[in-house]
């Protein structure tokens, strides 16, 4: 069974149809890229999947279960991790504490009033950070971290509830080229190892074509192409959209 099934979701803002009837599915362990020019509806699509926006029509199913219109925190409880285009972490806490928060929430221990956080789930958080190459930074405050490192922290937080699906909105935006490749390689490795379905949007075509198993192309709110990287690269409609918008269309 596919991890995520999306069926004809639609969203309008005022008179503008941002997303018009998009359907697709993501399989366990698969890296699926959602690309398209600016304003194609990628972020809107994304926000409907994890509950930040409610679709006007259509269904979203996670492992066969209908999650359409649930709140983000309910979607998270069902096993969807999420990273943001602009990183959102807890600036007054250390890297380790950020991950601990996700772990504590996953174990439903946030209501506890007595035991100090310092002693709870610290080992598990450190293990997760080590897996992402962040062990050395665990004690540093998130507020002073370099942007590339914040992206890794976000990934660690998103992995804390052992998700079936990972949603990554522009995971490498704002990173140096080398960091991009290593972060995506890491993500792909973890996804395959744990059978996590990954859906990501991305502007960097190098990242997309070297790491995606499959690609969806969105233009003006509708899917115009879907398939393996090679097929998408040669699709005449995709070439038209991208040449028209002036972006590079791969190598």
């Amino acid at each position: 069974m596919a991890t995520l099934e999306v069926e004809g979701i639609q969203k309008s803002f005022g008179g503008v149809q941002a997303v018009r009837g998009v359907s697709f599915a993501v399989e366990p362990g698969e890296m699926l890229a959602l690309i398209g020019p600016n304003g194609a509806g990628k972020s809107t699509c994304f926000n409907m999947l994890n509950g930040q926006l409610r679709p006007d029509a259509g269904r979203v199913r996670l492992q066969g279960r209908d999650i359409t219109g649930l709140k983000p925190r309910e979607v998270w409880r069902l096993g969807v991790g999420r990273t943001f285009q602009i990183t959102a972490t807890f600036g007054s806490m250390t890297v380790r504490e950020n991950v601990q928060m996700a772990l504590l929430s996953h174990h439903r221990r946030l209501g506890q009033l007595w035991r100090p956080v310092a002693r709870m789930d610290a080992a598990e958080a450190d293990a997760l950070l080590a897996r992402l190459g962040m062990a050395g930074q665990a004690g540093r405050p998130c507020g002073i971290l370099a942007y590339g490192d914040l992206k890794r922290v976000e990934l660690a937080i998103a992995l804390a509830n052992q998700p079936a699906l990972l949603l990554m909105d522009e995971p490498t935006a704002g990173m140096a080229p080398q960091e991009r490749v290593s972060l995506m390689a890491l993500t792909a490795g973890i996804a395959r190892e744990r059978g996590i379905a990954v859906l990501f949007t991305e502007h960097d075509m190098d990242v997309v074509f070297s790491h995606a198993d499959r690609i969806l192309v969105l233009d003006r709110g509708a899917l115009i192409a879907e398939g393996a990287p090679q097929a998408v690269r040669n699709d005449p409609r995709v070439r038209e959209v991208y040449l028209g918008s002036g972006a590079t269309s791969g190598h």
Partner: protein
Amino acid sequence: MASGLTVIFGVSRIVNFAHGSLYMLGAYLAWTLVTSLPRGHLGFWGGVLGAALAVGVIGLVVEMLLLRRIYRAPELFQLLATFGVVLVVQDLALLTWGAQDLLGPRAPGLRGSVEILGLRFPLYELFLIVVGPVVLGLLLLLFHRTRWGTLVRAATQDREMVGALGVNQRMLFTSVFFLGSVLAGLGGALQLPRESVNLHMDLAIITEAFVVVVVGGLGSLSGAALAALLIGELHAFGILVFPKITLVLVFLVMAVVLVVRPHGLRGKPQPAAHGVAAAEPMIGAAPPALKLAGAVALLLAVALPPFLGDYALTVLTEIAICILFAASLHLIMGPGGMASFGHAAYFGLGAYGAALAATWLGVPMLGGLAMAPVLAGIFGVVFGWFCVRLSGVYSAMLTLAFAQIAWSVAFQWVELTGGDNGILGVWPDGWAAPKLAYYYLALALCLGGTLLLRRVVHAPFGYALRAQRDSALRAEAIGIDAFRIRWWGFTLAAIAAGVAGGLFAYGKGSVFPTYLAIPRSVDALLMVLLGGVQTLSGPIVGAIAYAGLQERLMRLLEYWRLVLGAVIILLVLFFPQGLAGAARFFWERRHGDA
């Protein structure tokens, strides 16, 4: 009045307590002008308009001297600064016009009344009913038909963009503030023939106006008008049908509106401000030096009192109570990131809980002390449910409105609470009657409570509070129900404040409505801000410093509000980190620590 507030808020996003003071000044100035000018049409209407313009100029001065400097400061500090203005103006008005109520003359030409449907309506009331919509219409015209109005509306939506387009924002804000002040002054002046002018007008009207603005939706003129009409009708008919519970009725309407439409009838969600807020500092273990200082202070607090006199013991007991009160407010302000301008409500409810249990149920002291947090907690749950639904200034305004409601109930429900006379004879049991014994009891409970709160901040719950403050988006994305966390945080703070209030009641032997009045809420705010919001030791240091300071001031000076207000303003302008924050800053700089 409300329209003035909503316009100012919309553009400058400065929530303004001083607006109530401007309103009061309008009434006082109108009284002076009308009574000194020759009688007749010119004297009255000229006086009213003159007062409105004079208030406009006063508003202008306040804006240029104070507010202009703090537009970039956190909203909480802006609120606090305007509260400083309120205190200063109150004492200035007391100095100028004295404490007695002043009665104004009736409006010439509108003295009579007419009969409509068998009910007599005073002409002046009818006139006011007409004036409201006319002023509203003029404002709408001004905002939609003039270049200035367009700029103001643009600035309401996106301040930075308007600035980037080359508009002089300073002039724009100043002119808006002037207009808002004139409206406030006019509102105050027009009240003159209806009711006497007194020193409580400012806070009374500001509460009402906040309710109107919150119900109508911030920044929406038509919403404010609609809400003012609704609340006005409620008052009018409420007094006919249920004279005793009009306030509760108003509160119920506000509750219903906010549940159905969290941003008011015509309001929209606030657009997020550009730019990223500075990261809040971390909370770590106390440095060794601080631990040592704390241990020494505790040792002194335990060892010294047997050698002190009764008066010193009373003061020390109050300081201990203040520490718990400040620490409870700090929980929602610091880690919770919410502002409460009505925290005294829970302190006072605690005091009343203890006193009512003692006088009506005749329970012994420990029972009364147990009732205190229960009553405060119950109201914390109910009020908190409303307050934490909203964020930032909305929430702060609501806490204030609830505190005001709690105060008026305590003040008006004479059968139960004794009204202004309070409840007397709430004395501790025999074993705790000596001052020394009671001091130790208060110290144990207050320090215990404070340490407990500190423990909570370090526990998962406290981290969850900080998490939703740091990033609401991320908190929601990892399954944290921010609303519920804030709600329980609020309740916990209310319970702790209730304990403090109960102890205070038995310490004083009596309970008065002033225990839950706004000045006491401000006391708590000042203790927290004086000490510094961002450190855990802040509220403790602040409580000690503030309680000591206030005790001296009230003893020495008649016009202590004036001094206190000035201190607040200076604090906001020059000392935004508070005492503990400043100490930490110097400490870290000296040790080369980032």
